[in-house]
């Protein structure tokens, strides 16, 4: 009787499981197809679908690393990979440092216009970046900052700040008030309270923020297109990949491996630091 009930229950939830598994397959298939194709030789990619490898999945002669060798050397994706790191690391560290100071002031200091100033920061959170490109690019051209790493570090700092200040201010503000008050009573300066209390207690928030900003910059195309546009030497992966889409057109064997080169860092971050990753994305999705 019990057995029968269990069986009936399993049977009635069968459509549910089928639906979920189908959706998961639909979500997974495009990426898996790309991954498999990136390891197939040119002729195979251009003449048959990637699913045909499943006819004999363990016949390793049908796979090759040649596409990766090609994109990394001849198509200079290797250089772009390095550029992405050179762009992303300072563009993550500078805004977080600058924002942490301001967030501390907003959370634990008193000064005239505090509320208003913070409301303005929240307003700036959703400004379309498009509003800023023309004036900044003109200044950059005059100062010789267009097409330089320094220029894009500063731009990403400016664009990343509203969200960083907002997130850290909320986190600092939620730390126990007594802790700070007793520290001040014991004669701790703001400087000490910032470095000894606020920062160490906020490591999870800082980690989420760092991951969000890192991915945002790593995956960014628009800002790189505007400020680094014509300069091949400093182009990050996204820029390089989008220009390969134009120039390689139907050369799928190269495009697929190039796309995977650009995705490998975000995917590693996603699978290794999923908890922080989810928090960062959820908090930051309203960013301009």
């Amino acid at each position, binding site marked *: 009787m019990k057995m029968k009930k269990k069986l009936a229950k399993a049977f009635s939830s069968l459509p549910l499981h089928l639906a979920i598994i189908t959706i998961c397959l639909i979500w997974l298939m495009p990426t898996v197809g790309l991954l498999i194709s990136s390891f197939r030789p040119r002729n195979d990619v251009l003449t048959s679908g990637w699913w045909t490898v499943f006819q004999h999945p363990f016949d390793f002669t049908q796979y090759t690393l040649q596409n990766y060798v090609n994109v990394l050397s001849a198509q200079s994706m290797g250089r772009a990979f390095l550029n992405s790191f050179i762009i992303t690391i300072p563009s993550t560290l500078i805004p977080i440092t600058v924002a942490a100071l301001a967030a*501390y002031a907003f959370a634990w200091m008193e000064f005239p216009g505090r509320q208003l100033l913070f409301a303005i920061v929240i*307003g700036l959170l959703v400004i379309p970046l*498009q509003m800023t490109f023309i004036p900044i690019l003109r200044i950059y051209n005059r100062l010789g900052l267009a097409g330089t790493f320094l220029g894009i570090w500063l731009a990403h700092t400016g664009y990343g700040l509203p969200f960083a200040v907002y997130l850290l201010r909320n986190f600092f503000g939620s730390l126990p008030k007594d802790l700070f008050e007793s520290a001040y009573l014991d004669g701790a300066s703001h400087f000490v309270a910032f470095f000894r209390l606020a920062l160490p207690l906020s490591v999870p928030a800082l980690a989420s923020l760092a991951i969000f900003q890192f991915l945002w910059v790593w995956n960014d195309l628009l800002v790189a297109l505007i400020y680094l546009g014509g300069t091949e030497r400093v182009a990050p992966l996204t820029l390089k990949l989008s220009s390969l889409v134009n120039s390689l057109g139907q050369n799928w064997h190269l495009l697929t491996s190039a796309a995977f080169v*650009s*995705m490998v860092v975000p995917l590693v971050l996603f699978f290794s630091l999923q908890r922080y990753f989810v928090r960062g994305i959820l908090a930051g999705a309203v960013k301009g």
Partner: protein
Amino acid sequence: MKKGGVLPWLYLAPSLLFLGFFLVYPTLHTLYLSFFDERSENFVGLQNYIWALTSEDMLIAFRNNLLWLVLFTGLTLSLGLILAVILDRVRYEAVAKSIIFMPMAISFVGAGVIWKFVYAYRPANAAQIGLLNAILRLMNLNPIGWLVNRATNNFAIIAVGVWIWTGFCMVVLSAAYKGIPKELVEAARVDGASEWQVFWHITLPMIKPTIAVVATTLVINVLKVFDLVYVMTNGDLGTEVIANRMYKEMFHFLNFGRASSIAVILLLAIIPVMLFNIRRFQEQEAMR
């Protein structure tokens, strides 16, 4: 909280400098430029705005952004909600969530390449290399040029957007769903409510505030949608969107007046969201 004359401003100074230079000043300057001609030399009044609101290309862009707004927002929200609810009932919830959330980690450019490959078209007599057309051939239908055919291309790109963002909606809504008190749902079931009734009369009203927040995020992102369209079709064949048009006016036609007016229109569309954000924050502050 400690009073401190100049000290707060020292903490704030770096942030205020960056925000002023990269967001506040250029926003105002772009507003100013939108009333001038292409080289920002002669005042032209509202001419750029009249062009932006009446020209053929811009009308197509407005139509498409509206299509994105309705379809993309509607589909991602409802799919995300359905997944949040049904995944709560299975044991492999974490794995399924990872799979569906993963596209959020990769760049729009990468996603664009992935899906261009899914949509790849070959004539009916050749072997298909794109997954979607291979399925059509399997059902003895003619392959479709998904990104070329004007009847399908907009939907094809929107589907990629849905693929990327559904995971985001699912994760946020799932957190809210799990926050609903279990007793409430149990009580309703004991009183004989069907699963549908529970969903409509308990689940939905309880997570409405979260749905509002998610919807706001989606709307902001949909208004500024750029990368996907830029990579997949570059706005050709009737797939133009506002942000891509602005990029074209700026870099291809070098018409800074028109580009600025498009940016201002984007900003105007986002201002209600901005006010909503500020008000929500002030309510939160009042409750602190």
